[in-house]
């Protein structure tokens, strides 16, 4: 992967000047390449990685395994696209194995998610079955550990 993308993945808020200094290129070059990635749709957005367990939000997340009937011509894409458009669905993946689609769904509470599943998801043509699991605690998200950073144990000066 392009070094520039790696740096943005690690910290999208890093100043363009610091990125330029690390890559040994000019600031304009950094800006040009980022704009290019945005235009091509490689970069699709920038978000903070939160430890939501600290925020006391009225929110639950469920992971839902969905079995669907693939369609002639479109395969899974059309139905996956339809499901992805619900704002409740935060992430959606096509999977290998015993089910087809994996959805990460958010709601205010358990009932909220349950009604999304029974009233919306399950009623869609082509959805054969669903299996819902609620998330209890987050230990790591997007490569970031949720526990507070540990102290540097190194001696402050060493040879």
């Amino acid at each position, binding site marked *: 992967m392009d*070094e520039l993308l790696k740096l943005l993945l690690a910290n999208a808020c890093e100043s363009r000047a610091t990125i330029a200094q690390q890559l*040994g290129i000019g600031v304009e070059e950094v800006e040009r390449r980022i704009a290019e990635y945005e235009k091509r749709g490689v970069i699709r957005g920038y978000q903070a990685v939160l430890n939501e367990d600290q925020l006391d939000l009225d929110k639950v997340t469920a992971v839902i395994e969905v079995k669907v009937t693939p369609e002639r011509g479109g395969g899974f894409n059309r139905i996956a696209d339809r499901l992805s458009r619900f704002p409740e669905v935060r992430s959606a993946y096509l999977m290998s194995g015993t089910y087809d689609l994996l959805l990460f769904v958010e709601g205010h509470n358990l009932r909220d998610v349950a009604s999304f599943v029974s009233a919306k998801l399950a009623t869609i043509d082509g959805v054969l079955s669903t299996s819902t699991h609620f998330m209890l605690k987050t230990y790591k998200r997007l490569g970031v550990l949720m526990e507070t950073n540990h102290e*540097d144990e190194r001696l*402050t*000066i*060493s040879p």
Partner: protein
Amino acid sequence: MKTSGSPSLRDRIAAPVRDIPRSGIRDFFDIVSTMQDVISLGIGEPDFDTPWHVRESTVFALERGTTHYTSNLGYLELRKALAGYVGKKYGVNYDAESEVLVTVGVSEALDLALRALINPGDEVLYHEPCYVSYRAVILFAHGVPLAIETRAADGFRLTRAMLEKKVTPRTKVLMLNFPNNPTGATMSRQDLEEIAAFARERDLLVITDEIYAELTYDGPHTSIVSLPGMRARTLFLHGFSKAWAMTGYRLGYACGPAEVIDAMMKIHQYTMLCASSFAQKAALEALARPDSDIETMVAEYRRRRNFLVSAFAGLGLECTRPAGAFYAFPNIGKFGLPAKEFALKLLEQERVAVVPGTAFGACGEGFVRCAYATRLEQIKEAMKRLGRFIGRLG
């Protein structure tokens, strides 16, 4: 305990030990450790944790009960893996049975090498600024240290002309360390060829400390041992501390002709017995997939190096572009302060710790060592503070 009539205990300490000053690094550490909120660019070890699969395998080794002595040379399985790694990476093949010794860090390997090779009075050539222990281990082995000054003007590289000025008929060993601590200097194949030719002509033995070999940023590392005619006269030292971020495991190794490895093994056998068994198991795991672990760290060090070089340039500080290890060695001579005073003032006024160049030999005067084995945010803040500090010095 001092009884009248007998000499003081201090006088009874063996002369080579008594006469060596404590490491300058140690003195500086004592000062820094009394202070709060210090950003330290003085740390000579990776800020990365040991790769998780290596740590996990250490735990597994302990669970399995790998807590016993190993053979003196180290597990044969590990020596085979080491021989394979060195062969593939540096192009020199060693016999795992007789030409590889696993040691307690490169530190022990250096000590063993000098004790195995030096008779009292034999001279050892080495280049300064250099790792703090070189002069001391030569003296502990009753050798005579001959320091060669490398200079910023030459990118801190060693040249044949410098060697010729110092060598005498009593010179037996040449010690090398590239990529270099503290300057970050590296030597190209061409640079090494003239050193190798000199060693062959003068029939010198070479001890090459290549602990930073994987950490190069502008091209791959060449080992002097891979040059024609060098394998038979060279001892190759390497370890897991730097490239694998395994300093606390204390694991290194020596590869060389069987006669020399056997001599080192004798000392090791009687004084150390063997290196830690579970650290050896961890090293095996580290060698199972070195490239992916090291690539990530090297990429990060390279970016920090680039940042630091650019930041120094912005501050008007001259600095030879370091191409290896994780140190930069900027010139602070123009401020007219001795390196130690510069470092102390910087520490007191701005809480940034750097190591005075003089800790690495007298010719380090006028320089400070800045390690970039520290997170970029810290380096950034340190450069801001350094900028304020030198702004006041004018």
